[in-house]
């Protein structure tokens, strides 16, 4: 978070401090976000989101129709139906549940439906594991969803609300997922600041507004929805003469969302006094950093504290936290890593046979950079393995050695930290 430069519309005194864990923060944000339909299926560690929200529904605190679907696949399917009917729709899941609904994730994006989903990141089976890593997120990497990773519970609350605004922007109209680390954030209590209900309502502009589109058989533009007044057919069969053309606007919308994510971040700053870097990336001491660690999610907090200690020792270390994984902020990453000499990209997931997904994005971004730093991939934290300060220190020490050596041998490019090797 950045230091206040302006007086926000809702300074801290006007916000409410609540003591919640990540899941509860999501549920609370939902309560305020005038959501029409929540269709969800429980899976650890997302369960508290649906449980808490069910309480709000049972107490009549929200108008939301809660659909206790019989699987995650049906959860996302119901969200697609609800969004197509004009409702603001939300779901939440993790791991196996996300894997089960992957088919529909692509459909939701292809149909340009502004659904918001909280993904409480959890490792994928086998073996079955309920703890945190990013393998489930990496699974949906190419599905056409905007993917935002949060570092702490405060950011989780903020980002959940922002997600609706980003998704429903007329030039975006894409589904958005908010990623919080399972257990590290979902089940960890934090004191966070929440806006009053009417502030969130105003920020989102009230209920979801439909966008319009033009088809040949209606003279005027019509609502992009299932409307008995102006019937449309959603989800046709497109053959090889049109499928390709239909994908381009989707890709363009994802590119445009970078701008919107930044704008919403700024707007939030003016509203609450909080912002997360420029919305896409959250840099720490990168202006003169030689050694940079790139990471996503809650580990950024640990890394930042170790970087701080090394700075005190005189080492020019820095942290680049990626907030927007999709769209991947190539321009910002390239600029911020311009002066780095050695970079370690930390991935909490890996596709065997290649590198971690974040590493691949960073390296391909830096390929066209004027000065290409030494770069390695650290795989960490699989299955909820804790990334401790001592591990981060080991990484930085090794990077210093790499720097002295001046090159990275190919067989040392993919590294693992925190795993027992003997």
């Amino acid at each position, binding site marked *: 978070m950045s230091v206040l430069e302006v007086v926000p519309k809702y300074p801290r005194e006007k916000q409410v401090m609540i003591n919640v864990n990540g899941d509860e923060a999501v549920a609370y944000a939902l309560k305020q976000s005038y959501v029409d339909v929540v269709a969800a299926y429980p899976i650890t560690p997302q369960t508290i989101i649906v449980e808490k929200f069910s309480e709000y529904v049972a107490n009549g605190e929200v108008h939301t129709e809660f659909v206790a679907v019989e699987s995650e696949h049906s959860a996302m399917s119901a969200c697609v139906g609800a969004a*197509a*009917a004009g409702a603001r729709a939300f779901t939440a899941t993790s791991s196996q549940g996300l894997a089960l609904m992957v088919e529909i994730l692509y459909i939701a994006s292809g149909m340009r439906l502004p659904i918001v989903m909280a993904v409480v990141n959890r490792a994928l089976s086998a073996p079955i594991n309920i703890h945190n890593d990013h393998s489930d997120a990496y699974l949906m990497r190419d599905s056409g969803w905007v993917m935002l990773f949060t570092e702490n519970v405060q950011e989780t609350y903020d980002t959940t609300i922002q997600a609706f605004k980003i998704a429903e922007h007329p030039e975006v109209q894409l589904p958005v997922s908010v990623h919080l680390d399972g257990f590290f954030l979902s089940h960890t209590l934090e004191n966070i600041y929440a806006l009053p209900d009417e502030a969130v309502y105003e920020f989102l502009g009230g209920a979801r507004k439909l966008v319009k589109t033009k088809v040949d058989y209606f003279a005027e533009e019509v609502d992009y929805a299932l409307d008995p007044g102006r*019937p449309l*057919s959603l989800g046709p069969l497109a053959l090889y003469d049109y499928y390709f053309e239909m994908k381009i606007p989707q890709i363009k919308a994802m590119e445009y969302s970078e701008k919107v994510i930044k704008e919403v971040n700024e707007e939030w700053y003016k509203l609450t006094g909080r912002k997360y870097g420029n919305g896409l990336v959250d840099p720490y001491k990168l202006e003169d950093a030689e050694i940079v660690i790139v990471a996503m999610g809650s580990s950024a907090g640990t890394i930042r504290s170790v970087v701080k200690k090394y700075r005190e020792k005189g080492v020019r270390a820095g942290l680049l936290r990626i907030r927007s994984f999709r769209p991947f902020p190539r321009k910002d990453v390239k600029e911020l890593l311009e002066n780095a000499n050695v970079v370690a990209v930390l991935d909490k997931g890996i596709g065997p046979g290649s590198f971690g997904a974040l590493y691949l994005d960073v390296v391909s971004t830096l390929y066209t950079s004027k000065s290409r730093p030494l770069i390695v991939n650290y795989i960490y934290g699989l299955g909820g393995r804790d990334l401790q300060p001592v591990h981060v220190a080991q990484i930085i020490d090794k990077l210093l050695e790499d720097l002295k050596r001046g090159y990275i041998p190919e067989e040392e490019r993919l590294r693992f930290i925190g795993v027992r090797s003997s």
Partner: protein
Amino acid sequence: MSSPPAAPKVPHEIIIFEPGKKYELPLILNLRQLAEQRKPALLPGHRMCAGCAAPIIVKLASFAFRGPTVVVNATGCLEVATTIYPYTSWAIPWIHNAFENAAATASGIEAAVKALKRTGRLKYDYIDVVVLAGDGGTYDIGFQALSGMAERGHDVLYILYDNEAYMNTGIQRSGGTPKFAWTTTSPVGSAIPGKPEHKKPIAEIMVAHRIPYVATATPAHWVDFIKKVRKGIEVNGPAFIHALSSCNRGWRHAEELGIEVLRRAVDTCYFPLWEWTPETGYLLTDRSLIIARNPSLKQPIEKFIEVQGRFRHLLRPENRELLKALQEYVDATWEDLLKRAVNAPK
């Protein structure tokens, strides 16, 4: 032969419901009145095979609609052949999501309509949600979503148009394929004579869910069909209609027999017509009720299979026992239904 006469000008129209008005279209069963007052939800120019019963099912069902209606279509012949981009044959709002989730998608739409109405944002008094799904998307891959939708009690009419195989992908067997039927994945060979398993009793399974309305129907018995669709729409909660839909490609019958073969399915008691509600129990309807009262009208199963190539092997003398087994099965299930039907003569 001279070139065909110029087509008369007809406005094949989109069906529009202007917001803010109350709609309660009366149920019409008179053909003249239907032709004059009702527009089909399906437009010509679709690419269903010549003689397919599915578009007839859609047309008849749409004659029973009472107002603003949204159709959810599972992947399959109907969905694919009526919406080849950039063309659509649908005169009403329509959505296709995926193969196995029509019931889940419909659940989401129904929930959205409720939420919008609750907050004063629904432009209509109500919007009816109707699912059109094939046996592919219902018996097998779509069953979970259907069962979930039924259990949660969503106010949705689910119409299964059953052509008894995965026709769109090339006639592969489904849970709805009858025993002994030839399909590409249950072919008639020297070791196995067609599909070994019986047709899953899908409508009875929906009865076991104890939803407000379940019925079987065919477009051949059109008055019965339209009445049942209307009941399914009016009932408050999930309704399920199992509609038998002939497929001249997959069943290997002559194109012009599309309706005739469905008539024979009912006449032979292969596909009895009934409806069920928790209050009334099983009630035979239309031709099946007539047959129950006049058992001499029941036709031997040959009458159904003799026009279909997918059963042709059963008419060979060496397969006499198989034909006998099939007749016995049809007889047994018919007798069982008679025992359960409240209006069958005792």
